[in-house]
């Protein structure tokens, strides 16, 4: 029997509400881009001047080109490495792979601003690693402020994203094909190149497309590492056109965002198509296929562990070490004796200043309670789209795409306006609810993906048998689907919590006195350059994320779907 026509009102209602939530910011951006003043200005007129400005500005083309290089460069770095890590951890008998997995994912849980700061303190020109290296070898032949340096850092920090997708595809792969090849005498590399690789190719291509998309949206790393050298990407270009005219010129910001949407929407679209294929592909293996692990041998073990160790050193230890160090000192760098600099003053300031300590509480509240509300919302949306092959299902697919194409800073700004100008939303503006709504939208595609994959694990026979015995669709959801996915929901909650902890751009315009959040406070402090407090907040943010991640693993969150 078909379930598609069940509960049409519920499905349509939820999906339309979601569509309104995601379409409003996008429409506002498009509308603002064709005006000659802020949309609320009394003398505002239609005008294409903003587009004219952008299209005749050589900086825009430079930023576009840099962004393209950055995005593709990131893919070139992240996809092979992520794929290799996934292979080693899921398909081989690598030692210690159980505890390596959460470690490998760490860069994904840190906001890119925090990562970038960490890198300047560790491997910047005066970083502690650079200085140590120099004293050993005479010179340190790298620079993190060049485009290749920024691309490498961006790429390394996106390895976990690739890892997640490829590892989950590899886990679903039955090992009989590999074993067949092994018995026929093929070596381990032959097997992985000729058997494993083709089987996970869809996942690799998909994660490449995803990384390309993330590359176009990237903000924190180029902001911290590229800006002083004049290396601009599209998102930092948006940031700059906001100040270059003196007074903020929203129409130009909006016009650049429209270009960003035009670039990213096709990418998102391609990615969706690929995902559909990837899912079908993975289904070939079915569940419960036993996986036998490839043996690496002792040389293989050493090489693999060395490689992973090196990657961990560069991608986890360098940035996190940099932040931890900076949080406990006031001065660092060449000629500075760190032991004389150790201090808790940075943290003292954070806890003494009401807005900063409130920001920590608000962030915990927003991530914990807000995360739970977000999961409930994503579950509603997930159910509305569950086995929904109708038109509302297609609308849902597209609604999820829209926020992907908007930078968090812009989502925050448009929500600030919506809460200011839409009458029934006004009372919510100065509360954490306004931030929560914006966060739910920003986290939508990620959150929904977790929920959907959990929902898909419920075999349709269970729901169908409930229906046949006379249960309504709601009853089948309440009594069959939801109880079955409950453990998955707890894990999803923890993951969303981490995503909300990490977020920084969305709150910049939305937060007010009383609703500060850590990530956006760091951006505000960045404009005045209060590095002491930024470092302390970064450290606290990392600590909270570690707690969240531990909680997630305890609750049985699956880091892979």
């Amino acid at each position: 029997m078909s379930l598609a026509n069940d509960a049409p009102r519920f499905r349509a209602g939820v999906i339309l509400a979601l569509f309104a939530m995601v379409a409003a910011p996008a429409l506002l951006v498009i509308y603002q881009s064709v005006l000659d003043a802020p949309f609320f200005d009394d003398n505002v007129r239609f005008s294409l001047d903003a587009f004219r400005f952008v299209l005749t500005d050589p900086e825009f083309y430079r930023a576009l080109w840099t962004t393209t290089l950055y995005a593709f460069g990131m893919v070139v770095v992240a996809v092979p490495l992520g794929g290799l890590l996934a292979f080693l951890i899921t398909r081989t008998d690598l030692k210690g792979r159980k505890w390596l997995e959460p470690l490998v994912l760490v860069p994904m849980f840190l906001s890119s601003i925090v990562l970038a700061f960490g890198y300047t303190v560790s491997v910047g020109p005066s970083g502690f690693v650079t200085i140590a290296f120099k004293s050993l070898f005479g010179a340190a032949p790298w620079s993190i402020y060049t485009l290749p340096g920024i691309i490498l850092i961006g790429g390394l920090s996106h390895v976990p994203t690739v890892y997640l997708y490829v590892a989950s595809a590899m886990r679903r792969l039955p090992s009989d094909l590999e074993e067949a090849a092994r018995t026929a005498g093929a070596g381990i590399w032959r097997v992985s190149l000729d058997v494993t690789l083709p089987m996970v190719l869809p996942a690799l291509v998909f994660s490449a497309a995803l990384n390309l998309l993330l590359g176009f949206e990237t903000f924190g790393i180029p902001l911290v590492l590229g800006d002083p050298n004049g290396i601009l990407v599209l998102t930092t270009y948006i940031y700059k056109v906001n100040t270059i005219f003196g007074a903020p010129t929203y129409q130009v910001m909006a016009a650049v965002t429209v270009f960003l949407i035009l670039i990213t929407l096709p990418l998102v679209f391609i990615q969706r198509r690929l995902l559909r294929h990837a899912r079908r592909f993975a289904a070939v293996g079915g569940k419960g296929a036993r996986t036998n692990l490839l043996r690496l041998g002792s040389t293989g073990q050493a090489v693999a562990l060395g490689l992973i160790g090196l990657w961990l050193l560069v991608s986890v230890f360098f940035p996190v070490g940099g932040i931890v160090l900076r949080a406990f000192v006031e001065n660092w760098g060449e000629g500075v004796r760190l032991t004389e600099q150790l201090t808790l003053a940075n943290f003292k300031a954070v806890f003494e200043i009401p807005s900063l300590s409130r920001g920590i509480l608000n962030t915990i509240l927003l991530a914990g309670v807000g995360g739970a509300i977000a999961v409930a919302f994503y579950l509603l949306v997930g159910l509305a789209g569950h086995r929904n092959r109708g038109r509302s299902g297609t609308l849902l697919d597209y609604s999820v795409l829209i926020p992907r194409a908007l930078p968090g800073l812009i989502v925050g700004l448009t929500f600030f306006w919506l809460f200011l100008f839409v009458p029934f939303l006004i009372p919510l503006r100065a509360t954490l609810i306004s931030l929560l709504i914006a966060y739910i939208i920003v986290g939508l595609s990620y959150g929904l993906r977790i929920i959907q994959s959990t929902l898909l694990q419920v075999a349709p026979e269970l729901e169908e048998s409930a229906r046949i015995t006379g249960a309504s669709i709601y009853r089948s959801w309440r009594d069959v689907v939801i109880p079955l996915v409950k453990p998955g929901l707890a894990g999803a909650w923890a993951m969303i919590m981490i995503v909300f902890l990490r977020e920084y751009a969305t709150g910049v315009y939305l937060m007010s006195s009383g609703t500060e959040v850590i990530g956006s406070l760091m951006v505000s402090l960045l404009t005045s350059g209060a590095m002491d407090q930024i470092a302390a907040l970064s450290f606290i943010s990392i600590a909270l994320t570690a707690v969240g991640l531990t909680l997630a693993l305890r609750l049985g969150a699956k880091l892979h779907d």
Partner: protein
Amino acid sequence: MITRRHVVAGAGALTAAAMAGNRPALAQGIPAGYSADYKDLVDKAVKEGAVSIYTSTDDVQGRPLIEAFRAAFPGIRVDYNDLGTNGAYNRVISEAAAKQVGSDIVWTSAMDLQMVLVSKGQAETYKSPEAAQLPAWANFNDQLYATSVEPVAIMYNKSMLGALKPPQTRAELIAFLQTNKETLKGKVASFDPEKSGSGFLFFNNDARTTTDTWELVKAFGGTDPKVYGSSGAMREKIASGEHWIAFNLIGSYAIEWAKKNSNLGVVLPPDHAAAFSRVANISKGAPHPAAARVFLDFLLSQRGQTAMAGSGAPSIRTDVSEGLNIAKLNEMAGGKLKPIPVSAALLEASDPKTRAEFFQKWKQALRG
């Protein structure tokens, strides 16, 4: 004029100390020298219960002022919003258009944007009883008040410069950058006028008031220049040795930092001692109009200025002994301190044509 002010400052300091001993807390009474009906205003302000500040002065630096205000007026809660210069401007015009004004005081370092707000009719006219204590250039039509005097400075890393003699004047700086061009590659930093409103204010003011600005930018351009959006970011890089010297950063911060880190050197070049101010206005239609007035008066008062000067924003009053004040700064700059006046001329900085011309010249000069 300067010497007279300096004498006044010395005398003021003594009186301030004496007064602080006699009268520890104002406790919602009438400050000395205010008219008798000021008590009504304070009563109203207490009834309003809160004052909302939109500012670009971060929470760390603003805290001493807020605490001093709380101590003086325990009945008035302070909602302090550090939004940055652009963020504050954005929120004010958006809220005005939505008829939901949320700010009582707008207090930022973007002198030009603040003047735009005044010209758009977003500022209330209010003659502060403290106005008489301020220099004439610090008060624009009782609508926009300068609350600090902050010179631009040169800051350098002593051990990194090593044998190179740090430049003491603007002219020496130009020569320094030219002659040591190769040695200084990638080691010189300054404010970014494109990303930072303060950066634009400094360089544009330089270009208007001096003849050698473009020569300086050109010399800077020859060193593979690095530009930053904040003084704090420059401090981080100078202190770590990544850069050796920076110019046009906020001098009052630099002086504070140099006190804590003996490896940092600061020069206020006497041949070019421009200074900007954090400026404040009362928002049109402020939700707490009385509290807004009380806060503005406090901000300009000796106590408020003392608190501010203690956290690195030198006082515009000569009778503040804490930290630096306008008279001391002038003395340090050899009597040639040139504050940017709060005047309608600031509007020029937000004129698209002025800006386009400036940036064209800037980019050209920066190519070296």
